[in-house]
């Protein structure tokens, strides 16, 4: 089997494509996220959309849903030009989304959620009772019709529940089915299922597959996005593989195997810029572990929080760059938050330089821990505050003099100035400028600078290069190496496997709240790492 990309312009069946992506391009801040993707989704077909995080799947779906608009290329639905600007447009075109974050209102009943925007109403006596005249009528809900229609929709998705049940009482699997029922109720002709099985139990998954097949047989076009390759191979008729915004594989499912999918997803090229690896003279961090008396920077022992992470144990050596790989929803960010003290930890121990780490984030920062979060806009920055204010935030206490804690502005300003140069922050931006106005890369540099000023012993980075341009990325890698060379331990959480492979000394893989694999640099195998993220590594 060769791995040259094939284009799925017209599926190899008689079915007409309901949705067509035609040479779709999209860029953010000059970074191309979609580089000319073309494929079609046929009526009565399930198309599996596969690719790593960051391959472009969510952007593609956002374009379909009207949240974004393409820079080039065309979307067609039912053979007509389709350019949605709001979720209503997608809905009117018959396209329904079932996201991981469900759009249900838990304080309302199933029936009310299903028909929230078009309740069946009581019609004044004498008017005909046609099903499509739903919107007309008195402003009074026809409860009987509501119940009957809801039961019917629920039956179609295989749910045998009272439609008056409040959604807040339903487990995730059933809520998802309700969301699908909602789509059917809106006469959807295409259904997009985005990572539908992450929160489902085994029987719930089976139920979903049966339903998907039934819906397909009824003529609904389905896009099935999932990392569970086994499920994808089982369920879908056609597959599309995305990597780095390009379609690198596509065609009927029988043309693909699990291994071929993994190798397509992962690719072989290095298309990032990594600073020069450490000179051979510098000892590998693994060696320091054998030096008696040298404690690892961070030690995590059997950390568990029911429902979140299970039995996590690892250690991070001083000077080591440790990567944490895995799929979204595997629990990596959650683990980081537990390590930092933002979320509780039911059992287990965390030790920084040999001593137990407990208490609020503030205490842990004082001990030398630092945490660059995944969401820099909501949790890493005060968007309306200045660059200087943001950068100085963590280290303010050490720049203040007791007893009244007067701030030494000279010291703060010079520290900020030095750090600006160190992170190569755009010199055009004034110190007093609000960080909201900066580009993503510069914003991230501000956050990183903030933590670097604290001279941390252990730095945890969650998706440090997400959404920033290549130039800023390589800057950040350089800073990470600099920090590690000075003796700090760095934990990098990333969904870009290439990034971790290029950057780290060692990579841990998480799946479903547990550590599922560990790889040393000399035996980095992209396919094995991805496989560990997808399912447990079978020896």
């Amino acid at each position: 089997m060769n791995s040259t990309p094939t284009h799925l312009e017209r599926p190899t069946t008689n079915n007409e494509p309901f949705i067509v992506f035609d040479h779709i391009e999209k860029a953010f801040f000059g970074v191309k996220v979609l580089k000319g993707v073309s494929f079609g989704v046929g009526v009565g077909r399930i198309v599996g959309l596969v690719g790593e995080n960051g391959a472009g799947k969510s952007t593609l779906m956002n374009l379909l849903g009207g949240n974004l608009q393409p820079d080039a290329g065309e979307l067609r639905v039912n053979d007509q030009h389709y350019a949605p600007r709001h979720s209503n447009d997608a809905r009117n075109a018959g396209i329904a989304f079932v996201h991981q974050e469900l759009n249900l209102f838990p304080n309302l009943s199933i029936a009310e959620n299903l028909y929230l925007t078009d309740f069946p109403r009581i019609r004044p006596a004498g008017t005909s009772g046609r099903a499509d005249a739903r919107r007309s009528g008195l402003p009074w809900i026809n409860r009987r019709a509501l119940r009957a229609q809801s039961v019917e929709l629920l039956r179609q998705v295989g749910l045998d529940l009272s439609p008056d049940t409040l959604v807040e009482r339903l487990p995730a699997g059933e809520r998802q089915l309700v969301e699908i029922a909602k789509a059917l109720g809106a006469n959807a002709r295409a259904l997009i299922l985005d990572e539908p099985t992450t929160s489902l139990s085994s029987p719930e998954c089976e139920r979903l597959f049966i339903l998907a097949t039934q819906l397909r047989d009824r003529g609904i076009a389905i896009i099935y996005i999932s990392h569970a390759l086994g499920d994808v191979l089982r369920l879908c008729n056609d597959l599309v593989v995305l990597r780095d915004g390009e379609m690198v594989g596509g065609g009927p499912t029988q043309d693909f195997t699990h291994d071929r999918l993994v190798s397509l997803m992962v690719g072989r090229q290095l298309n990032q810029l990594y600073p020069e690896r450490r000179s051979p003279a510098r000892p590998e961090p693994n060696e320091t572990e054998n030096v008696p008396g040298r404690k690892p920077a961070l030690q995590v022992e059997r950390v568990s929080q029911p429902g979140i992470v299970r039995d996590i144990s690892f250690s991070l050596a001083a000077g080591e760059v440790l990567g944490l790989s895995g799929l979204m929803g595997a629990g990596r960010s959650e683990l980081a938050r537990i390590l930092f003290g933002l979320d509780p930890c039911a059992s287990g121990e965390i030790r920084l330089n040999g001593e137990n780490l407990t208490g609020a984030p503030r205490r842990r920062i004082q001990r030398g821990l630092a945490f660059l979060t995944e969401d820099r806009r909501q949790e890493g920055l005060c968007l309306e505050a200045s660059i200087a204010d943001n950068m100085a935030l963590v280290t303010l206490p050490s720049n203040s003099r007791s007893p009244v804690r007067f701030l030494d502005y000279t010291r703060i300003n010079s520290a900020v100035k030095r750090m600006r140069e160190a992170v190569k922050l755009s010199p055009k931006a004034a110190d007093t400028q609000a960080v909201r106005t900066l580009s993503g890369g510069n914003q991230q540099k501000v956050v990183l600078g903030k933590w670097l000023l604290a001279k941390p012993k252990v730095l945890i980075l969650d998706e440090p290069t997400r959404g920033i341009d290549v130039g800023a990325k390589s800057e950040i890698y350089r800073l990470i190496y600099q920090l590690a060379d000075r003796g700090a331990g760095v934990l990098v959480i990333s969904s870009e496997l290439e990034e971790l492979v290029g950057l780290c000394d060692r990579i841990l893989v998480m799946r479903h709240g547990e550590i599922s694999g560990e790889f040393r640099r000399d035996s980095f195998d992209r396919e094995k790492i991805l496989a560990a993220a997808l399912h447990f590594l079978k020896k």
Partner: protein
Amino acid sequence: MSAPNSRPLLRLLDFAPGALFAVVLLVFGLMSDKFLTTDNFTQILVQSSSTAVVAVGMTFVLVTAGVDLSVGAIMFCGAGLAGKMALGGQPLSLCLLVMIGVGLLGGAVNALLVTRFKLAAFIATLATLYIGRGMGRWITQTRAMNLPDSFLALGSAKWSGVPLPLWIAGGVILVAQLVLSNTPFGRQLYALGNNPAAANKAGLPTTRLLAEVYLICGACAGLGGILALSQLGSVSPKFGEHYEFDAITAAVLGGTSLFGGRGKVFPGTVLGAVLLKSIFNGLVIVQADPYLYPLITSAIIFLAVVLDSLRRVAEARLNARQIYAAPGQI
């Protein structure tokens, strides 16, 4: 996935108002035999009718996670205007219509400030509270007005043995309850209060919905003013004072959340209003120190808001996403 273990505890909170009511009946009933009589209870119901009506309007606003602090001032303006008209010889029905009209106008101003100018509800209605009170005092020239007997006649009239105010209040409560639970508009309000962003995404006309609830609240304030006038027969400079507080207390006591998305008119808010008045009635009967009244009311509302806040925190924790299914969970 969710942890069902804590849900029963949250369910218990729903019974809190009923339980509190039972406690109040018990305590005051034991302390005085004048409390648990039909006459006394009819009086409680009649006295609480105006608060109940205003609280019903407040419930609509609270369900959308808003608030209207100006209801008392709106009542005052309406009453002042109506009083002047009545003393000037205008027919009773016209005066009553004017009161409702003033209510709608006040609601419209609030709606405009909140939806069009995007002011926070509490600051917008705080401002209209003061402006309204000022206007009311201007209309009444800060003097008490004794209204013609036709107003008091409203209050003491009876249909089939039941006082007229109870009929009116009952009608309002019935209509409100039906609207909230049986109309598309009503159900959409709950969705809006629960998650405004999702409501927008789902295609709900959120601006229109928000504007309408403030109009409703204003109209209810006007109606409440009618009921209050029918019992007092006069408009003093303090008319309508504290009604916003009592209305919020009644609603929150009855299970409506300040954070939006939950609340029932019946039994909820109505029970809260009656509960509030019963407590006062009981305090009067046992001849408690009147200077303790504001202390007691504020303690009650404080407790209700604490429970509301704690419930919200607990619910957020329950609905947090799980990574894997721990044993014992769904």
